[in-house]
């Protein structure tokens, strides 16, 4: 499994593009996190409003149905950049050099083909909702904007996958050990040190 990774950078156009895309992906993921917080606040307003003021949030379920896919998709490309999507690395972990980059290249290619296929299906789903004027039962919220969020995030994912495909392709060609713009497993000692630093601050404060 590889999910916490380090991505090497340099001054190449590939690395610059990677960092520029990552800056956007990070903001989108934060937006996804804010959507989680919004869902939390709306749910709190709904329960307190209903019990204390006899005034639940109108169309609460419809609103939640619109928010959940946003939470589910805004981080998809960010997650891929950091190598966060779940995988087994029994075989690839044992490979070295060009063979390893070839295995990674094939894996990314499969993901790219699938993402292209799902992009087509998802945009068809969104366009049909737009054409038919599909709305939620409560409040009559148009469903196409959220369906379009899924489409847009597949575009970001495809961009990210193209970039990683290029990165692994270049690594296959040059045989370099530390290719840029692709997730690399950090040195174990460095990761352990970072983890130890994480377990501190507020938790320690809480015990005082």
């Amino acid at each position: 499994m590889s999910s916490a990774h380090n991505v090497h950078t340099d001054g190449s156009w590939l690395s610059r593009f990677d960092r520029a895309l990552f800056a956007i992906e990070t903001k989108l993921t934060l937006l996804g996190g804010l959507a989680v917080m919004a869902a939390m606040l709306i749910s709190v307003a709904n329960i307190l409003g209903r019990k204390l003021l006899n005034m639940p949030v109108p169309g609460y379920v419809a609103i939640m149905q619109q928010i959940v896919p946003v939470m589910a998709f805004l981080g998809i490309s960010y997650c891929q950049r950091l190598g966060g999507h779940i995988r087994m690395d029994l075989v690839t972990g044992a490979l070295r050099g060009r063979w390893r980059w070839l295995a990674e290249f094939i894996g990314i290619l499969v993901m790219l083909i699938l993402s292209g296929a799902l992009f087509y299906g998802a945009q068809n789903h969104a366009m049909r909702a737009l054409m038919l004027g599909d709305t939620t039962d409560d409040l009559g919220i148009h469903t196409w904007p959220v369906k379009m969020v899924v489409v847009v995030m597949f575009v970001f994912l495809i961009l990210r996958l193209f970039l990683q495909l290029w990165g692994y392709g270049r690594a296959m060609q040059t045989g370099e050990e530390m290719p840029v713009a692709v997730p690399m497993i950090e040195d174990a000692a460095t990761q352990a040190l970072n983890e130890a630093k994480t377990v501190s601050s507020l938790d320690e404060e809480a015990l005082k």
Partner: protein
Amino acid sequence: MTTIEIAILLSGVLVLLVLIGVRVAFATAMIGITGMFIFYMTEKGMDPGRAMLVTLKLSGQIPHSKTASHVLGLIPVFILIGYLAYFAGLTKAIFEAAKRWVGWLPGGMGVATIFSTAGFAAVSGASVATSAVFARIAIPEMLALGYDKRFAAGVVAAGGTLASLIPPSAILVIYAIITEGSVGKLLMAGFIPGAVSAVIYAVMIVGMAKRNPKLGPPVTGYSWSERFASLPAAAPILFVVAIIMYCIYGGWGTPTEAGALGAFVVLCMALYRGMRWKDLSGALIESAKLTTMIFTMIWGVLIFVRYLGFADLPNTFAAFIAGLHQPAILTLLIILGVYVILGMFMDAIGMLILTLPVTYPAVIALNGGIDITREASSLGMSGEECGIWFGIIVVKMAELCLITPPIGLNCFVVAGVRPDISVQDVFRGASPFFVADVVTVGVLIAFPGIVLWLPNLL
């Protein structure tokens, strides 16, 4: 080739893709789409172009339609609680208290981890989040004290599974919705089995550490005053637990609302303890990342599940079960055996969503039907009791998925948080807990009263 044979062949290709490192969610979705494409050509007689078009339109709507669910909103909210509770100092505080109170036992830090994950599970309903949070907190301390790396990672991965049973549990809510059962009774039914699981884990850890002291030395030297001093910091977790339990059991709100209220309280605590925007945005990004990871698994698996439905695998399984001439309990054990095998390859939620439409009616029928009385039934439970009892058993089986290779999510998350520990090591470390879970399932089958006592009080 028959449709079933093609489905079995494609399942083999899926295993191959996963083994060569293709991301699991994308591998399952890819095989699902390929299977649907073949199905439309061979079974529906479509030409390849038309079959591809229909497949893409159908599968392309699954990522949105399967995530646009109010119930699934529970998952990110509980993930957020997990991260906020970390910043609020709750996780570290409960771990510290558990360490001071039970650390003196052989493998004491492991026992402390199990009890603190059980306590944290009562705040966070997400197994994966629990494992992620405790991998950050418990593993560094255990390693610093000389604990075996595999053992420490296995304890955290297994401890995280307790969140599946101890209320509020997202999986139990999904079970209730699929089987049209009572959410309140199911959540209440999970409480004692969750506690029993924790005790069995703890007993096993003590036994292992006694036999091999190198696994984990006891932590001694805490005075009684130091033990009591650790309690006030852990007390807020009880407050949050009380809020969530009261909301659900008092009928105040839905599980999602209860979780949201808990998250809100934890957020307020974290802010009170000085959490800054940088920390909050970090928690939000981590929550969104983990949410995406889990939801991607869900929709990826559900595309595959849709194909399995086309291939009629569920009905084939039902016919197989119905055709068996043997005692009901033996058939039940066979079903559970199938869950163990399925759980090795499928996500827990995907597995439940796929199988319950088949296994739930099969088990209810085995017991004598939904209207059967306790006296007339073959398993000694009324129809409704059997539904609740099977829910707890099947969720316990789903817990097994979280720590069994090749796609046990908790093990991947622990390895993800601790890249210095390979996923293979986490799986090896968690394997004794698989045995403990089998023992727990045996206890719950032999004594259904453990499950049914609390819900029968409602």
